[in-house]
């Protein structure tokens, strides 16, 4: 069983850490270097976790738990107008990053109002590309209850964050956290920080269910292994966008144009199979500049193999 952890420290002797991760068969999920400081999110076998932690301490860093590492979360507000942004949407996104996830902030084109709020099909499909979504609503109970209907058709797990506790919308989303509505200032008081932690913990619990269902029918290949294989592909290696490859629980987002690189990606060999055979590869709904890879489960691959025979 692989476990995810984060090293936070200096670059001094960090080569030793990377060597050890490689030796134990682990994978670096994310690496951020800022001047002489380094953070590394890694996935390592459970039995080697202690040895890695010891090395991290020996080289002067600290080890932190990152329960949301390897996930990409969308934090969605009704709009990107100043009524809803940047507080509390950015505060929530920041908290999730502290938990190790990659976050994006989204606003809907026509999400404002009560009777006129809409979520288009494209917006819904974009949200469905992420591992989970947090919808941040406002201060009025009747508005929240009406707008909660918008997220009913979103397929990924969703957490609804709102000021008052809405009633009768429990089936629209996986979890509801109340007590955070529209705000005009940063969430920095102790009760507000506790509320942010509650949101992150709720999301973690929601994703735990998704991870459990993936364990029951495991993926053909772990996304981190695909990431390792693709890391040296030049267009990805040379890509200047932050985090050119982002891990999802069931695949990954690769930030290179689909039309130019589809063929290469489909023909990459993974455990003796073409990636195109063991994963669905399609362009992101945002635009053509990103690719979504959804790895099929082992049972799916077996079924398809049988059907072919």
């Amino acid at each position, binding site marked *: 069983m692989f476990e995810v952890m984060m090293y936070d420290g200096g670059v001094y002797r960090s080569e030793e850490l990377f060597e050890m991760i490689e030796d134990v068969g682990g994978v670096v999920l994310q690496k951020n270097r800022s001047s002489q400081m380094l953070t590394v999110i890694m996935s390592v076998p459970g039995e080697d976790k202690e040895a890695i932690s010891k090395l991290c301490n020996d080289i002067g860093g600290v080890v932190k738990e990152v329960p949301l590492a390897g996930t990409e979360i969308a934090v969605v507000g*009704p709009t990107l107008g100043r009524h809803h942004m940047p507080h509390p949407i950015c505060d929530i996104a920041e908290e999730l990053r502290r938990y190790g996830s990659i976050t994006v902030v989204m606003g809907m084109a026509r999400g404002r109002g*009560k009777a006129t709020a809409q979520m288009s099909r494209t917006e819904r499909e974009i949200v469905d590309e992420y591992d989970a979504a947090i919808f941040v609503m406002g201060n009025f109970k009747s*508005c929240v209850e009406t707008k909660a209907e918008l997220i009913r058709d979103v397929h990924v797990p969703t957490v609804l964050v709102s000021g008052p506790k809405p009633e009768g919308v429990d089936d629209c989303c996986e979890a509801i956290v109340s007590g955070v509505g529209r705000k005009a200032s940063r969430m920095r008081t102790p009760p507000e920080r506790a509320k942010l932690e509650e949101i992150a913990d709720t999301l973690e619990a929601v994703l735990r269910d998704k991870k459990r269902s993936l364990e029951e029918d495991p993926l053909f290949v772990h996304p981190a292994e695909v990431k390792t294989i693709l890391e040296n592909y030049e267009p990805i290696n040379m890509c200047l966008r932050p985090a050119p490859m982002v891990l999802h629980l069931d695949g990954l987002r690769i930030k290179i144009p689909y039309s130019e690189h589809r063929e290469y990606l489909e023909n990459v060999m993974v455990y003796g199979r073409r990636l195109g055979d063991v994963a669905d590869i399609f362009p992101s709904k945002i635009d053509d500049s990103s690719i979504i890879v959804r790895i099929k489960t082992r049972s799916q691959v077996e079924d398809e193999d049988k059907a072919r025979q």
Partner: protein
Amino acid sequence: MDIEVIGDDPFGSEAYSKLFDEIMSDLNKAVLIDKVKLLLNPKTPLFVFSIVLRAEPGKKTIPDVSTVRMETEGVHVTITQERYAPDILAALWKRYGRNNVYQQTRFDLDVKGATEAELAEMVVSSGEEDKREIMGAIWRTMPEGIKNRRTLMDGNVITVVATEEVLLPEMLAKGREIHASMGGAA
């Protein structure tokens, strides 16, 4: 600033009272406002935001925001309200030229060839501009989707009646009622 909230949503009422205070303070408008009444009815939806200003924003001339003293070659101006300093300087430069306006310190100016009477006629801020800024601040505090708005303005009372779709006569009547209760014309 005294805020009264009328609404049947306890969480929303408390949150909007705090939001109004915070946003007005952020925009430096809280000091201008004496009394506030907010009607929050999200179910309809109808929102009425009514405020009473401490004083009606009017035209401001140079002597209103500074002290003016006659001297041998012109006048000496000491700016007393800092926010008007750029407007005063711009108005004096425009009329007397840069060479005739000598700025001793940030707030002390010598203006050659000027008279007290001339300065008393120079307007540095019109009341309209202040009202527009206050209106902008009120709009910012209102919920974003409530776009259909009617503004009632009488002296130092400003009331904004807003809804999401059609502004019905009874909504406007409710707005007028609140406007009158704050001291505006019925």
